[in-house]
């Protein structure tokens, strides 16, 4: 199975981090993966995208995923206010593609958009990822983890085991190359938890709750 | 390295090389006062008759504390026409990048010869130092590189035919300043002092012994403490259109002798008895 994933959201929500963790987990599962952020001078709350390609075969393509089969929307304003470089937000979505949107309620779309998504036979999941992050992990900064949980719930794209290892690696002691703003958020996140292990556990809990909510729906 | 000829080849080398080996300045701690009694390491050069810049280089080379362990970095300009005739390793890279090249060179030599002083001395014109290469000159000072920068200030671009430079004095008419230069001479002495040079001096070849003292001080301080700067006033007879024989008089009349040293440098100079 080949996954071409686009993550859209606002700067600071952790799309880039989520993409890195997801790709890393896929590699731990023995798959091939290429991860690339949308590369601008990204600032907090500005539209941001990141991309992950995962396959059991070798992956060659570089650059943006222009024709994704999975689109993850991290913030409702991506849709409602068009805070997105790719317009409309489902642009390029392949036939039978998957949409995962961070919201507890369904967002009302224009008739044209609804029709267009219907023609593509898109599967749409709503998951209250930010709420789960707050409730389970105690911080909205875990929204990205809950979104990954939803993705795993819908696709089984990676194993929980590898995901946990990838999270531990990302927030562990190893030096990780991150942009200055991402590094600052990392610090905030790490301060929230007494130990690195607690951070990993809480985040994994958010992952599992989100995954379950999708499986159950 | 003190040059020695391989046995058996003594007789085949041209005479000026034999003189360099038998009577050169390497490893002998010679001074300007000894000029005329040893073989100088500059061979015949193509600069103009009465050139104060070539006189300055001649005096600088005679002042080097360790010519056998000195590498000279030059830049484009009249000096680079003379440099190939100098029997001391010297580099011409590009116009203006001499202090950046010298920074890399000095660091490489520190790595390769940790137990030896390898003096890296920049000898460049005013255009290369204060105009096109100003950022690289100043940044080598900011970084506190252990190099000596010697500016040959002939107040203009001479090699290219006599254009105004930032070291030209206000009001002077040269090419590219057809109505006379509209701003004063750049205050490189002050810039050097404020940029972190541990030793700064201004002199001219009209005062050879003072020039020697300053060049030696600059190199010895650069070895031990940090960047140093010597500005040598050497007016250009060709482009300022005066008789070559007047060079020395002009130099003497207009030279400004100044010296600044940091407290560390002062202590070192006193300790070395320089």
């Amino acid at each position: 199975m080949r996954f071409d994933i686009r993550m859209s959201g606002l700067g600071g929500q952790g799309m880039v981090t989520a993409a890195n963790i997801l790709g890393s987990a896929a590699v731990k599962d023995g798959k091939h993966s290429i991860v690339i952020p949308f590369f601008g001078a990204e600032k907090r709350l500005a539209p941001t995208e990141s991309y992950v390609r995962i396959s059991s075969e070798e992956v060659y393509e570089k650059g943006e995923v222009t024709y994704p089969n999975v689109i993850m929307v991290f913030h409702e304003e991506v849709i409602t206010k068009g805070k997105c470089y790719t317009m409309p937000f489902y642009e390029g979505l392949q036939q039978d593609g998957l949409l995962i949107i961070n919201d507890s309620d369904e967002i009302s779309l224009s008739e044209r958009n609804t029709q267009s998504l219907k023609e593509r036979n898109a599967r749409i999941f709503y998951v209250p990822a930010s709420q789960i992050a707050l409730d389970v992990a105690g911080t909205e900064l875990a929204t990205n983890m809950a979104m990954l949980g939803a993705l795993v719930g819908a696709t089984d794209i990676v194993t929980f085991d590898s995901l946990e290892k990838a999270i531990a690696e990302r927030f562990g002691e190893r030096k990780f190359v991150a942009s200055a703003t991402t590094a600052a958020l990392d610090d905030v996140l790490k301060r929230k938890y007494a130990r690195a292990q607690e951070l990993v556990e809480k985040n994994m809990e958010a992952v599992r709750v989100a995954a379950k909510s999708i499986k159950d729906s | 390295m003190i040059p020695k000829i391989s046995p058996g080849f003594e007789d085949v080398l041209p005479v000026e090389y034999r003189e360099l080996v038998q009577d050169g300045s390497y490893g002998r701690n010679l001074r300007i006062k000894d000029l005329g009694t040893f073989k100088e390491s500059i061979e015949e050069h193509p600069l103009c008759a009465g050139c104060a810049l070539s006189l300055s280089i001649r005096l600088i080379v005679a002042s080097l504390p360790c010519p056998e362990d000195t590498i000279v970095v030059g830049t484009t300009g009249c000096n680079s026409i003379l440099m190939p005739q100098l029997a001391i390793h010297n580099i011409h890279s590009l116009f203006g990048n001499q202090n950046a090249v010298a920074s890399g060179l000095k660091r490489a030599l520190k790595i390769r010869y940790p137990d030896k002083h390898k003096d890296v001395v920049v000898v460049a014109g005013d255009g290369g130092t204060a105009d096109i290469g100003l950022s690289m000159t100043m940044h080598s000072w900011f970084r506190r590189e252990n190099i000596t920068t010697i500016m040959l200030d002939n107040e203009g671009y001479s090699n290219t035919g006599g254009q105004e430079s930032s070291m030209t004095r206000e009001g002077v008419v040269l090419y590219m300043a057809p109505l006379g230069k509209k701003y004063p001479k750049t205050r490189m002495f002050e810039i050097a002092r404020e940029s972190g040079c541990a030793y700064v001096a201004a002199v001219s070849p009209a005062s050879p012994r003072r020039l020697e003292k300053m060049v030696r001080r600059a190199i010895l301080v650069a070895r031990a403490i940090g960047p140093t700067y010597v500005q040598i006033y050497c007016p250009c007879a060709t482009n300022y259109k005066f008789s070559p024989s007047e060079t020395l008089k002009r130099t003497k009349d207009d030279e400004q002798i100044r010296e600044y040293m940091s407290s560390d440098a002062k202590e070192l100079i006193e300790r070395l008895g320089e």
Partner: protein
Amino acid sequence: MKERKVVDPEYLLKEAPREKKFLIGNEAVAEAVKRANVDIGVSYPITPQSEAMHLVGDIYAEGYLKDYYRAEHELGAMAAVAGAAMGGARTFTATSGPGTLRAFEMFPCWAGARLPIVCAFMCRGVNSPLTIQPDNIEIGWLMDTGMLIFHAENPQEFFDMLLQAYVIAEQPDVHIPVGVCADGFFVTHTREIVEVTPEDEMLPPYDPSKSPCPTMDMETPPIRQIRDPFVMKSNYISYNAHASWQQEVRAAAERSRKHIAKYLGSSIEVTNPDAEILLMASGTAAAQARVAVERAQKDGIDAGLVKVKVIRPFPDKEIRELTENPKAILVPEHNIVGWLAREVMSRTDYTKVCGGPRVFGGMTMPPEVILSEIKNLARVI
């Protein structure tokens, strides 16, 4: 820092055990520099190169390099590595797009001075309006500086090519700089599996005594020596010396072919060389083209791919032979000028060569775009 041991270059490049890591291109650069036993690194920030030189700074702090600093600008950085190389040190630096142009005067100077400097170019757009995005137009300019130019497709190749570059650049018969280019972001910021050699094994140190030009340390004869001499006399013979000098720099690049064959395997990688439609691409355009060719083959179109890994010296003979039989040649590129198409056209029947598709200014080149061009060609040939 672990205790390290010097190993044979051929062993390090070909036989040493490899560990899989999930790295971005810029991390792969630092991993390569670590194993290359570099003496001095000089940095200057520019996107998308900066992280690579941050990491080189970090490994300097760990003790892997002997010296490292941030220069005043790219010209200063490139001049400093030139000075260090003339002094007999192994050096590394990197830059991108506008930085390449700011430093440009140094590149022919490196080649002319026969300095074995390795520089990574993380290619990005350079024009106004400002773009920090991938676009490899700068390779088109670097091609004629006298440097060797390698073009990496992915972080793995970036890692390997940097190490290979040091080994090839320092061969006494070559001894010219190597620019290892990779498309910014598409390689520098893309995270994928990179197989790296052991951290405690490194290349032998640089031996300046084998340099074809004397090292500037006052320990190497002759002492009466300038790097590098002007033409001092205006006559036929001294200009002949200068002309011969330039020929010698190009000759050095020719001599590198043997070493490229030994250490890189080949300047090109070919899939289905007998195809009717042959794609020629370098860097990430080759990655996109590979996917497009696979899909075209599935659709019954006879397509093949030649990936050009070495831009200088250009694989003339190989390209001439490969371009003899196909009916059409497609050259997708990540720049507006189409420098690779120009290179291919000048070595074959140019009427067969379609330069394109070209994508630039940071845009991604989806394989679908290349595929549709292949299909268009298939209809007309």
